């Protein structure tokens, strides 16, 4: 057993956990600011400079609220729901390559917690389990609105996972690997996958919106129709967990999109600058986070632009629009590689 690696991985794991939570926390602030700016308002600006302590205040508020478990609710499942949602949301970050390798004292340390050779499949598995958090929460609440939200969440996630998976199949045809690390390494310079898979990217992006339950696909929790959907009965920090899990999911899916389609931590023209390898790595990580924040902003931008889908429109788009399109994308990619490899 190599102790240095073990200690390094543990420390790195906690850093990633901390960063994920921090980004998710400030996403709530960012969301409110973006929403306000797009509606010609100023947003939170009272707690601290520019309202920067607002997430802390919100967190304290969430902890101080009375915790209510309805009498008719199934207590164990009621507690299990938000726990699953939070856990799976946090677990996804493990396989994402946050940077290249750091050289400290002649040893190489990878800026990735686990380089699974089936990285993408792992992400999908975690996202699929995530739906249980919502379903169990909605079911255990014993409330018709919560149940509606849960049913909607389940059917929506299953429907859009298909198209998402298929858009990934086309991507894997071009990369030839399921490992996220290798996919990033292949995209060095400006060989970003978005230029090779523009249609696949659009499908993946749409499905990512649906998977994270964000507008225009926020049917499971639409305030207007379902008064909160699956978290109608939740209060205090359990509600906080659900809301927080959503923001973590948004962060992680932004990271996955940046990894798969925008070259991850690769920075164009960085090799020409002649910097030391460690600087390049750290700059790459910074650039990766820049891409992630850009994606998060896109998520918010879309949310405050588009109205919510109607339920039949959602299903129409998923089954009749995106899935045939994804199959067509696989077909075109397959034919292209078939003929280029023949010659």
């Amino acid at each position: 057993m190599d102790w240095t690696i073990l200690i390094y991985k543990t420390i790195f794991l906690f850093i990633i956990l901390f960063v994920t939570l921090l980004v998710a926390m400030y996403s709530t602030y960012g969301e409110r600011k973006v929403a306000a700016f797009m509606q010609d308002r100023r947003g939170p600006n009272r707690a601290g400079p520019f309202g920067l302590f607002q997430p802390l205040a919100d967190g304290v508020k969430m902890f101080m609220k009375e915790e209510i478990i309805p009498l008719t609710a199934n207590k164990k499942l009621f507690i299990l729901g938000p726990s699953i949602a939070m856990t799976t949301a946090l677990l996804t970050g493990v396989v994402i390559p946050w940077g290249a390798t750091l050289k400290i004292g002649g040893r190489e340390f990878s800026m990735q917690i686990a380089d699974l050779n089936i990285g993408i499949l792992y992400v999908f598995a975690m996202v699929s389990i995530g739906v249980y958090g919502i379903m169990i929460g909605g079911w255990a609440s014993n409330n018709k609105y919560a149940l509606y939200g849960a049913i909607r969440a389940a059917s929506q996630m299953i429907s859009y996972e298909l198209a998402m998976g298929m858009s990934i199949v086309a991507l894997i045809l071009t990369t030839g690997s399921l490992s996220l690390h290798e996919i990033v390494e292949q995209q060095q310079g400006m060989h970003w996958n978005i230029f090779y898979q523009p249609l696949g990217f659009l499908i993946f992006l749409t499905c990512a919106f649906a998977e994270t339950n964000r507008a225009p696909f926020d049917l499971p929790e639409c305030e207007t129709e379902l008064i909160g959907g699956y978290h109608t009965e939740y209060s205090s920090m359990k509600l906080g967990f659900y809301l927080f899990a959503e923001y973590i999911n948004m962060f992680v899916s932004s990271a996955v999109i940046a990894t798969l389609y925008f070259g991850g931590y690769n920075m164009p023209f960085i090799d020409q600058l002649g910097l030391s390898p460690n600087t390049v790595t750290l700059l790459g990580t910074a650039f990766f986070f820049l891409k992630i924040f850009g994606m998060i902003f896109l998520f918010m931008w879309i949310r405050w632009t588009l109205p919510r889908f109607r339920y039949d429109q959602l299903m129409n788009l998923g089954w009749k629009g995106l899935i045939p399109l994804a199959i067509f994308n696989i077909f075109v990619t397959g034919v292209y590689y078939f003929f280029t490899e023949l010659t």
Partner: protein
Amino acid sequence: MKLLTTRSKVVSDKKMTFLERIYIPAILKGMYITIRHFFGKKATISYPEQKREFSQVYRGQHVLKRDDQGRERCTACGLCAVACPAEAITMIAAERKPGEEHLYREEKYAAVYEINMLRCIFCGDCEEACPKDAIFLTDRIVASDYKRKPFIYGKDILVEPVDPDKRIDISARQTESVLKFKQDKRFAHNK
């Protein structure tokens, strides 16, 4: 057909073209609109630091004036209470004792004078009804509170201080046109 506004659009149920059906141009158009607002000017006024300019005839918190010698002008005639459409004003009259001439201008004065600020609709009828020029509405804002009790303003809040430097300025809304309007008895609400 005559259009009611200049911004109305004629709608139709024609079949959507391919570009319209994939929604992407429409989505981009919407995103362009929102991002323009993102960088646009904000409509908010950050209240305590930045105050909005009131209209010249803004009617806010009342004041009970004193005369030039610091005596209360109010004689508790009750006309304001009668004029008040919201029945927000109550008062108890009292007789001036010898030796109190420096406090009250006439023989009768209001021992208790209360305005319920939750009932008041700030119409200004009390000001118009007052024969002694004692009550005026000013451009001050009635402060918010957590309970109902503090909204019943007594004489401690309503009567202006004796100190000539701390008198409440009521000239803001007593513009020429307002004064002229008040002199015209045809427009008086209380006959």
